[in-house]
Each structure stands twice: as C-alpha cells, then as structure tokens.
C-alpha cells in the first residue's frame, strides 16, 4: 500500500484532534499488518470506493473514547452512550472529510460511506488481500490507532 494514502489521514487527525481537544498529541511508530489484528473496543469505520477502495478505522479503547467525547462536549461523561457515539462519529467525519479533501487535491477520486461505530471486546479485523497500515496517535486521553487499508482499483 502506498504511504501517500495514509499521510492525509494522519495529518487530518492531528489537525482536527488538536483543534477540538486542545491538548498535546504525539505520533507513534507506523507499522504494517497483513493478517487479522485485534481492535481496541470502540472503532469508527469509513469505507472508500472509487479510484481507490478500502476502509479506514479510527480505533480506541472505551475509556479513551469517553474522555474524548467528554472533552468535545465540555462535560464529564461516564458511559459510552448515544451522545458519546455521535461525538466519536462526528470526529471520524471531520478527520475523514479533511483527509479526503487532500487526497482529491492529489488527484484521487472516490466516495466515502458515512462513519459507522462498532463496539465490543475481543474483536478482530481481517482484510482480504490488502495490507493495513497503522499509525498510533498518543495523547493524555490514551491512544487512537488510525488503521488504513486501501488499494488502487484495477
């Protein structure tokens, strides 16, 4: 998978997270996975279809998701309830929209699905025929992994 697909997502995640959370954010080491991998508990998924196809996951633990939702809503939230889910969905929306704008500027044309959230313990994701590139983002609320599996359509 070409790294140029993932950079816009990482840059967009940095810019949006900094703007909405106003805290320090660090980028961890990028790594590649080609087999099934565990996901952290709260995952927003966005599908891509067009010149390129695949999916992007924004993956985090439930405690991190609740802290992010609390910060974005300006109130202490104790459960990952409907408002928290709507908040993480909107976060994924904003990051993806910004990344896609950059990818369109680079000449890639594709459409996106609206983000969906799935939650649960002991989940795994398996991509058939596409390697996933993962960029961990570290902050005081915990870790978000941006997990991108995209390929050019033949």
């Amino acid at each position, binding site marked *: 998978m070409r790294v140029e697909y993932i950079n816009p997502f990482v840059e967009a995640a940095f810019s*949006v997270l900094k*703007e*909405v959370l106003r805290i320090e954010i660090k980028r961890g080491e990028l790594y590649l996975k080609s087999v099934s991998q565990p996901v952290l508990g709260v995952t927003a998924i966005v599908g891509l279809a067009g010149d390129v196809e695949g999916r992007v996951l924004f993956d985090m633990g439930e405690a991190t998701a609740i802290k992010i939702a609390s910060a*974005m*809503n*300006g109130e202490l939230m104790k459960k990952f309830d*409907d*408002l928290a889910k*709507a*908040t993480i*969905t*909107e976060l994924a*929306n*904003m990051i993806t*929209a*910004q990344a*896609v*704008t950059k990818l*369109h500027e680079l000449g890639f044309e594709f459409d996106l699905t*609206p983000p969906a959230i799935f939650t649960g313990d002991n989940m795994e994701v398996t991509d058939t025929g596409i390697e996933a590139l993962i960029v961990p983002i570290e902050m005081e609320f915990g870790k978000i992994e941006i997990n991108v599996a995209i390929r050019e359509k033949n």
Partner: protein
Amino acid sequence: MKTKQDFPNINQRPPDGRKESGKPYRVLIVDDSMFVTKQIEQILTSEGFDVAATAENGQDGLEKYKELYPNVDLVTMDITMPVMDGVTSLEKIIEFDKEAKIIMISALGKQDLVKKSLLLGAKNYIVKPLDRKKVLERVLMTLKKQ
C-alpha cells in the same frame, strides 16, 4: 477577589441572541448528529437565542419550518443527512418562504455543495469543526444582513 462590578461592560452587554425588542431570535437546527445539534444549541442558548426546534433530517426540517413559520428567524442546515439531504431541504424551504435565512453547516471537502446551496438561496455557511466564535459571527452576520 474580582466581582461582577469589576467588569461592568461585559455584564451590561445584552446577549447577542435577542432582538432590539428584547425577544429572542428563534432558531431551527437541522442535523442528523446529536453531537452537532447539542453543540449548536449550547452556543446559541448561551447567548439568549431560543432554539425553537431541532430536526434529524431534511424532511423533518422542512416540516418543522412550516409548523414554526412565521415565528422562526434562522435555520442551521447540515448538508449530508439521511431521508432528505440539506441542499434539497434548503430548496424546498426557500420555495415555501423565499425570505428564509438558512446557514449551511458543512464538513470540509463539500465546497461544491456549499456553492450550490448559496446559489439556491442559503445566506451563509460554516465549516466544521464548529467553535463558538465562528458560529456566533456567522449567525449574527446572517440575521443582521437585510
């Protein structure tokens, strides 16, 4: 300790959400995201606006606008929504009331749809992420523009 009296100008400033008559501007928020609706509602009510109703899609927004009319001063309209999108809802509200003041709420990357909305009669737009200053500036600019 500083008291309210130490900041007379701030405390005497009337809230932006009220008309000269003292009555609040009435706003309809149309957005399928509970988070965005709450965010806009908090910003507006903190300045004295009255959120007259909220709607989860363009169809619901159109119906609520007709129910509220003429007691509605402004609509904030998301672009991407299920059932009926924001651009279609805008078009139908303008058909019903050509004086309607509608602000489009857009994610980055929807410039074409924002342009189309402005041509169809939207008065302004705000690109997400939303912040208090940006929202109040655009809302007031739209309400005060004749």
